[in-house]
């Protein structure tokens, strides 16, 4: 008999496929358990948000607003990451504004607040209810094993009042109820898990229109910055080849010309000129090596990022410690960017900071390369003071990385850069 079975679509498993259904149920229980964690956190931040709101009403809550907003953002971010693990990825929104008015006007923050309230109440209830079902099943299934240990009064009501449990058949009946609980669990929990996630997916996903527009604008800007950085780099190379190496070689030819003319006149004179010509040729070679190194340091390709950075530290006039732990290599362009960020930062520090020590920390975490360069100099560095920092920002953002400079007057200065590894 031909059957018109529906194609195996993601969704509710077909009823008769017990194993598939069991798997779905276990997944759902896992999700509900995870949801329980974020629901408890949501309850905490909901309560603190309410407290903050009340404190604002009596006029003392404003300083708490950024803290509460950070809490909301943190829990929402955790839920986004959790949901992204078992469904379509949910992209983080732009950083939340820290002011109260701006935050309340920010649609992403308002939706997050709505999610916190929903998840703290309905989400918590769904998790608790969903997780209670299998516990009930276990309790009832094992009931015939331990019912005799119960005081008779308590044991008597174990069948939810359907019958009074006084003997083994009655207890076995309770055991059968356990099967019922399993059926209910299998029937309900997938839906409950989906419902719980639905609110998160609905409220935590970026507003479709605005967010893509923002992302496009951001990409356009970083792309332009990438091309700018590229052009600036080419200009730098051209300049150093032109005004350095080429001039040296021209000087060599000029001196050689002069030497040739001098040979007939005064051989001693010619010898002196040839000496200078050789000096100039050696200078040309040294400069050429410098240019090549500045395009892409060979040690970076031959060895590793840590080795290349150690080389930089050795050449830095300020004592510098490299604390690099990068077991897995990143894409070549990312490593080159990291290298130049550190090189540029060390140059800046040596030039302006009057620091006595520098520490460069490099870590690879979550597919991102994290750089942190800290010096104990006089601080007060900003992007307006020198082009070096702008260059670092451009190079970083060209790779879709993030850049942070913390440099209070009096120091210490910390430059934090994080780059997607691209591998």
């Amino acid at each position: 008999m031909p059957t018109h079975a529906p194609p195996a679509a993601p969704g509710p498993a077909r009823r008769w496929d017990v194993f598939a259904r069991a798997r779905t149920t276990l997944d759902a229980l896992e999700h509900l358990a995870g949801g329980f964690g974020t629901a408890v956190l949501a309850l905490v931040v909901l309560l603190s948000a309410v407290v903050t709101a009340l404190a604002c009403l009596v006029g003392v809550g404003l300083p708490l607003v950024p803290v509460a907003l950070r809490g909301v953002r943190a829990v929402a971010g955790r839920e986004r990451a959790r949901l992204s693990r078992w469904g379509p990825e949910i992209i983080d929104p732009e950083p939340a504004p820290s002011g109260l008015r701006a935050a309340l006007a920010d649609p992403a923050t308002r939706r997050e607040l709505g999610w916190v309230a929903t998840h703290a109440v309905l989400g918590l209830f769904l998790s608790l209810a969903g997780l209670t079902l299998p516990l009930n099943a276990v309790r009832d299934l094992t009931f015939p094993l331990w019912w005799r240990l119960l005081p008779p009064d308590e044991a008597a009501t174990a069948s939810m009042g359907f019958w009074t449990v006084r003997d083994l058949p009655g207890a076995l009946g309770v055991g059968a109820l356990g099967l019922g609980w399993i059926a209910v669990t299998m029937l309900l929990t997938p839906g409950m898990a989906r419902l719980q996630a639905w609110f998160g997916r609905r409220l935590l996903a970026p507003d479709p229109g605005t967010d893509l527009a923002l992302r496009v604008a951001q990409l356009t800007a970083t792309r332009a910055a990438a091309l700018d950085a590229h052009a600036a780099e080419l200009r730098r190379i051209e300049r150093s080849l032109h005004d350095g190496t080429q001039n040296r070689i021209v000087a060599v030819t000029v001196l050689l010309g002069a030497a040739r003319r001098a040979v007939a006149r005064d051989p001693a004179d010619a010898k002196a000129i040839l000496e200078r010509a050789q000096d100039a040729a050696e200078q040309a070679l040294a400069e050429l090596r410098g240019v090549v190194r500045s395009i892409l340091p060979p040690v970076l390709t031959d060895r590793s990022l840590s080795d290349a950075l150690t080389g930089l530290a050795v050449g830095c006039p300020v004592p510098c410690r490299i604390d690099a732990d990068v077991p897995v290599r990143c894409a070549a362009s990312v490593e080159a960017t990291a290298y130049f960020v550190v090189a540029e930062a060390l140059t800046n520090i040596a030039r302006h900071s009057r620091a006595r020590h520098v520490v460069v920390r490099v870590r690879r975490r979550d597919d991102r390369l994290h750089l942190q360069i800290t010096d104990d100099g006089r601080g007060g560095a900003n992007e307006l003071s020198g082009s070096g920092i702008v260059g670092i920002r451009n190079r970083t953002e060209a790779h879709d990385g993030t850049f942070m400079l913390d440099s209070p007057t009096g120091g210490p200065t910390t430059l934090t850069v994080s780059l997607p590894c691209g591998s």
Partner: protein
Amino acid sequence: MRIVIAEDDPLLREGLALLLRAESLDVVATAAGPDGFLRAVDAHDPDVAIVDVRMPPTHTDEGIVAAVEARRRRPGLAVLVLSAYVEQAFATELLAHGSSRLGYLLKERVGRVEEFLTALHRVAAGGTAIDPDVVAQLLARTRPDSGLDRLSPRERDVLALMAEGLGNTAIADRLFVTDGAVHKHIRSIFAKLDLAPTDQADRRVTAVLRYLEDAQRRW
């Protein structure tokens, strides 16, 4: 011959001065930038200025600007511009007010001392020295129907040397022919290109360069 050198690269500046002094030429001052150069021109009243194109602060065309300004201040000053690479726009800017007492050469030509000194003397004597590369670029970029295709290969050689600023005798030496043969070629070239014939070297250079530039612009 009193010479002022403007070149920002110290090694090259000293090398040039050394070379010229060894040839018993009088290098009266050297300068590392356009301002120092103009001061030196005012102070020493030289016959010839040798000027690098790229100088501080922006390392673009400071040398050209300074050379034009120096000639505005002292119309009789001969200027030989040295450049690390051939940029026809610089040549055009430089030659905008005639080609007399002007030279534009690649830096490395200095190493061929005899030719460099010939060019230097030619410029100091009121002539012109245009780098063969500039002329080659002009010739290469002209459009096919510019009239140049009516020239014979030998006539093209003569035209190129004329554009560099060489006089009839120098052209004859370079091509291993007689003066008379060169004269004949030049008359033929001027006729084919509809240019007014002249024997005065600098006016001839100007005419030829203008012609080549026009031929290029119509491209």
